[in-house]
Structures are given as structure tokens and as C-alpha cells.
């Protein structure tokens, strides 16, 4: 089975240690969540996996054929309509031509009833789209590319509940077709609800969980947020 394996990762930023012998695995056909407080190194970790940042030690290996990464920053030329943004995105992300039809077929299958909203944004001027609309459009369009490892850095940040619902439906649909999804979020509840497994970034390591109970009992919290706060406030090793 295809997988991403991170073994004994060490990463420093100036004098600040982000990761100290951190290990993680992401498997094909699964959604793996990543939780961690602001500044804990989630984006830096994604940058390492994508080769944008060099690590100080350890191994990162994956057997996937096509990796796609949607970073937190999404900037589109304001003068363009979203269909031109789509064309530009596909020129960078896809090895084969991807049409609106292709994208719609996929996302409509994963989350029925979504096509009309997608078409509306498709024709909208980029400068008139809200941040949430852009994130939603980008995430779904990216999922329609034939990638087998998709990394999403907080795809639901700033997105309303309806669009968030469709994003998770599409992530689940893509995973059901064998795509490995690695996704970060600050919303503990959505990670616990939708991910097959998830990691809490605490004490410069990845700690793996598969359910809410395990997460709460491990960090001594009566709610998910409380457990998150406890995990985030643990002293560095």
C-alpha cells in the first residue's frame, strides 16, 4: 500500500526546535488530520514534505506518484474570473488537461447538489469572491486533479458551514477512491469527526489518535478543546 512515512524528523527554526524525533504515517485511502497550536510547525512540516524546506534530521519518504499541496496563502490575479484562475491552477497542478466538466463530475459524485454553486463561482470575478469562496473553489478543484497524495493546510479556515460540509464530503469521497489526504485544522471537532486518524503536535512530536475518547483521556480533558489546550500547554521536551 502507498504511504507517506516520516521517521524521526528533526527540524529547527533559528534557535527554536520545532520537531524532535517526530514520526508520522499517512496511508492511501485515508484522511489523516493534523492538530497543533499556532506556531507549532504544521505549515513548516508540510513544507518539509513538499521539499520547500530542508529538515535537520530524520527521513521523509513516500511512494505516491502525484503530490498536491494547498497552502494557507491563496492569491489569485484579481483581474481574472475564476475559470481563468482554474486554468492557471491546472497548468501548475495537473499533468493532463482538466476541464470544468471533469471537475464537476468528480465533485458532484462526492457531494451531490454542489455543482450549481461551483458553476456560480466559476464565472465570478476573482476580486469579488470572498476568501471562503476561494478556499472552497481551490480545495475542490485541486481534489479533481488525479493526485494520490493531497496535503491541505487549514482548508476550512474562514469557510462557512455549508462550504465546510461540502469540503469534507469531497475529502471523504476522494479518500474512498484511494487518495491519501493529510489535512490540518484548528477545529478539533471536525478533525476528530472526519479523519480516519489524527496527530496532535505536542512537545515537538506527533502523537497519534483514532478517536475522541483516546484524545481526551490522553490529555486529561473533559472536552476536545480542553484536551487540545492541555496538549498545547505541555512543556517542551
Amino acid at each position, binding site marked *: 500500500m502507498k504511504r507517506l512515512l516520516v521517521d524521526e524528523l528533526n527540524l529547527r527554526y533559528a534557535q527554536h526546535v520545532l520537531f524532535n524525533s517526530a514520526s508520522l504515517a499517512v496511508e492511501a485511502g485515508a484522511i489523516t488530520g493534523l492538530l497543533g497550536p499556532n506556531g507549532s510547525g504544521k505549515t513548516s512540516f508540510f513544507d518539509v514534505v513538499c521539499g*520547500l524546506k530542508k529538515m535537520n534530521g530524520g527521513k521523509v519518504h513516500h511512494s505516491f506518484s502525484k503530490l498536491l499541496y*494547498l497552502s494557507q496563502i491563496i*492569491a489569485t490575479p484579481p483581474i*481574472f474570473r475564476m475559470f481563468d484562475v482554474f*486554468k*492557471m*491552477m491546472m*497548468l*501548475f497542478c495537473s499533468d*493532463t488537461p482538466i476541464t470544468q466538466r471533469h471537475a464537476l463530475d468528480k465533485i458532484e459524485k462526492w457531494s451531490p447538489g454542489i455543482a450549481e454553486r461551483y458553476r456560480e463561482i466559476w464565472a465570478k470575478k476573482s476580486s469579488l469572491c470572498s476568501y471562503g469562496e476561494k478556499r472552497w473553489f481551490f480545495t475542490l478543484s485541486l481534489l479533481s486533479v488525479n493526485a494520490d497524495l493531497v496535503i491541505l493546510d487549514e482548508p476550512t479556515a474562514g469557510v462557512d458551514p455549508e462550504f465546510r460540509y461540502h469540503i469534507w464530503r469531497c475529502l471523504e469521497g476522494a479518500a474512498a477512491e484511494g487518495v491519501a489526504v493529510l489535512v490540518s485544522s484548528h477545529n478539533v471537532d471536525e478533525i476528530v469527526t472526519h479523519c480516519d486518524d489524527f496527530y496532535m503536535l505536542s512537545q515537538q512530536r506527533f502523537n497519534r489518535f483514532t478517536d475522541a475518547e483516546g484524545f481526551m483521556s490522553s490529555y486529561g480533558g473533559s472536552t476536545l478543546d480542553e484536551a487540545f489546550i492541555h496538549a498545547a500547554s505541555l512543556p517542551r521536551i
Partner: protein
Amino acid sequence: MYIYPLSKPILLSVLFVKEQLKEPVAVLWIVISPAVTFYLISYARISGEEATRDYASATSWFYAFISSSVALFGLAFYIVGRRESGFLRSFVYTRRTKLTFLVGQFLAYSFMSVIYCSVFYVLTRGYFGSMAMEEWIIIVGRFYMCFLLFSTPSLLLTLLPIGFQNTNTLFSMISVGMLALGIGSLNTSHPVLNVIGIFNPMEWANRIMTMGVFESAPVVAVVVGLISVTGWLVFRFLLINPVWSRY
């Protein structure tokens, strides 16, 4: 299917040109302002002797200046702009996408340079007599070589970790500085200005515009060599993260 990856830079350049043409103010300003300046200078000379001069020598500084503007404020400034807006961070993070982006950007501004040159030719040639296709082709060839000449320093400047506003200021200073030093050295034999002139790309460009591509073979050889090395350097060291970002 094998054609698609190879055609990506061309398809991307079409989108970049479309983006440029949808912002006509910047396009017009780069080409209209030198044309207006040209006519103002000609008008100030009153005698009308400008019209009796050879077209190439009368306009060479203007073409040199426009080509520098296309390289600095088109080709290079848009790379900085795309970096600082986070566009590169979003999509251009592999060797393949960096190559697609850089080739697409270069093709787009190669095309735009021909457009800028042609519009200036149409706006000014009538003052000296009728236009000629053969002359236009020669001038476009010379102009494109000047564009390549200015592309080398312009692209190297994109590797500096400075923000959008500071880049704009730096490019403006360089542009005006090159022009002032070039014109300033015309009627002087001061040794310092002569030495500076050797390293001033604006003087090289002026020489290419007046003498021609084949007649400036040594300069052209240096230009082609430098742009090849620069292309590799920019590909290798292209800054992806915005300067304002902590990453």
C-alpha cells in the same frame, strides 16, 4: 498527451498576456509616456531638424528606455508581485512548476516587448516619413535584443529578498539612473562617466538600436550568454515565499 506538458508554458503565457491586456493603464503608460516625451522634446527644439534626422538615431534612446521598462517593470516586477502576493507560494514549489512559471512569464513578456516596440514605432515613425515593414522588422529585432540585455539584471534583482514597494522604488531608481548616466555621457569626455558608460546597459542598448544586431555582435554574444546563465540562476534560486512571510 505528451504535448500538454510541453505546451504548458505557452498556455500560461497566454493567460499572463491576457492579464496584462486587462490592465491597460500600465500597458499604455509604459508606451505612451516615452512617445509623449519624444514629441515634447521634438517640439522644444522648434527648428524641426529632428524630422530630418535618421529615425533610428533620433529614437534609439527611447527604444532603449522602453525595453528597460518592459524588462524591469514587466518581466521582473511581476515575478516579485506574484511572489509577494503569495501566488508562487500557492502553486510554484516544484522544479517542474518553477520551470513552467519562468518560461511562461518570459514568453509573455517577449510577446509584450514586441507589442510595446510596435506601438512606439507606429506612434513616432510618421513624424519622419512613411512606415516600412522591413524597417519595422529590423527595429523589432534590435528592440528584442535590448529586452534580453535588460532582462539579465532585472531577473537577478528578483532574487533580492525585498518587498513589493521597495522593489518598485529600486527599479525606478535603476531605470532613471541608467538613462541619466547614458544621456549625461553623450556630450562629455569626463573619464568617470566614460568608465560608467562601459557598464551601463542603457548605453549598450542604445548602441544596439543605432548600429544593429549583427553590427553589435560582441555585445549580442555577451547578452545571449548572460541571459542563459541568468535563466539557470533564477530557476535555481527563485524565491517562493513572500518576504513578509515568516516562512
